């Protein structure tokens, strides 16, 4: 909740206020909750409304759906096109420099704080909607339906945003793990 509130508010302190206000709002409004949406969606709607109100002066008021449109267009390849063979090569659009297997990477390095912080950095650098979608889906464990309802975006846009976000995080990991390999032990 804090993560989402922070998207709208200028500081962490304000975001914490918003989370607190949200819980109070939830408790006070619980008898008005009609079960037309899931409780979770309802709570997060209260959260975003409060966060928007608090953050309005500093922040934008562009709806998620237009932001999503903006971030899903123009097209953006998941993998650098230079890693594939060209039309004139033997296997056009096949791998020219294929990705390595990560099976050889020891589990303790894969799960190290350092690797995880690379993942966190890569997510922090994503455009807002991609960051929101990957956060809700892959960190918070929401279903795609919940994310679509909550952000009021189409299933297609949700998938494109998730795809771009995951692809960029993979890219960052690949770069990081490859550089680790070359470094002296």
């Amino acid at each position: 909740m804090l993560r989402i509130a922070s998207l709208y508010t200028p500081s962490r302190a304000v975001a914490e206020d918003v989370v607190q206000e949200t819980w109070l709002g939830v408790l006070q409004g619980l008898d008005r909750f009609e079960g037309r949406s899931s409780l979770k969606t309802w709570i997060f709607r209260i959260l975003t409304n409060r966060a928007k109100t608090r953050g309005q002066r500093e922040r934008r008021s562009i709806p998620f759906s237009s932001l999503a449109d903006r971030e899903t267009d123009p097209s953006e390849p998941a993998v650098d096109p230079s890693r594939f063979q060209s039309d004139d090569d033997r296997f056009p659009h096949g791998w020219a420099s294929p990705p390595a297997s990560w099976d050889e990477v020891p589990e303790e390095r894969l799960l190290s704080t350092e690797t995880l912080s690379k993942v966190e950095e890569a997510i922090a650098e994503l455009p807002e909607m991609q960051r929101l979608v990957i956060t809700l889906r892959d960190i918070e464990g929401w279903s795609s339906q919940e994310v679509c309802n909550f952000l009021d975006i189409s299933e297609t846009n949700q998938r494109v945003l998730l795809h771009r976000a995951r692809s960029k995080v993979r890219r960052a990991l690949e770069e990081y793990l490859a550089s680790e390999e070359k470094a002296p032990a």
Partner: protein
Amino acid sequence: MTEDQTLTCQELVELVTSYLEGGLSDVDRARFEEHVAACDGCTNYLEQMRTTIRLTGMLTPEELSDEASRDLLGAFRTWRA
């Protein structure tokens, strides 16, 4: 997809999320899996994407600071009173 029936590696990487989300048609899924079965590069790529998702899932949702938790508990107490 393409005019012919085969899927190139460059096309495949764009379908990985749809594949993992169960969003491909039966025909497209079969083509996807056929390609992966015959291609080491794409096998590794798919594996890397799965690992990426697993590692992302290990990031813990941000915790409330101690101060905020105390405030929150205080607020609950007042509300119930």
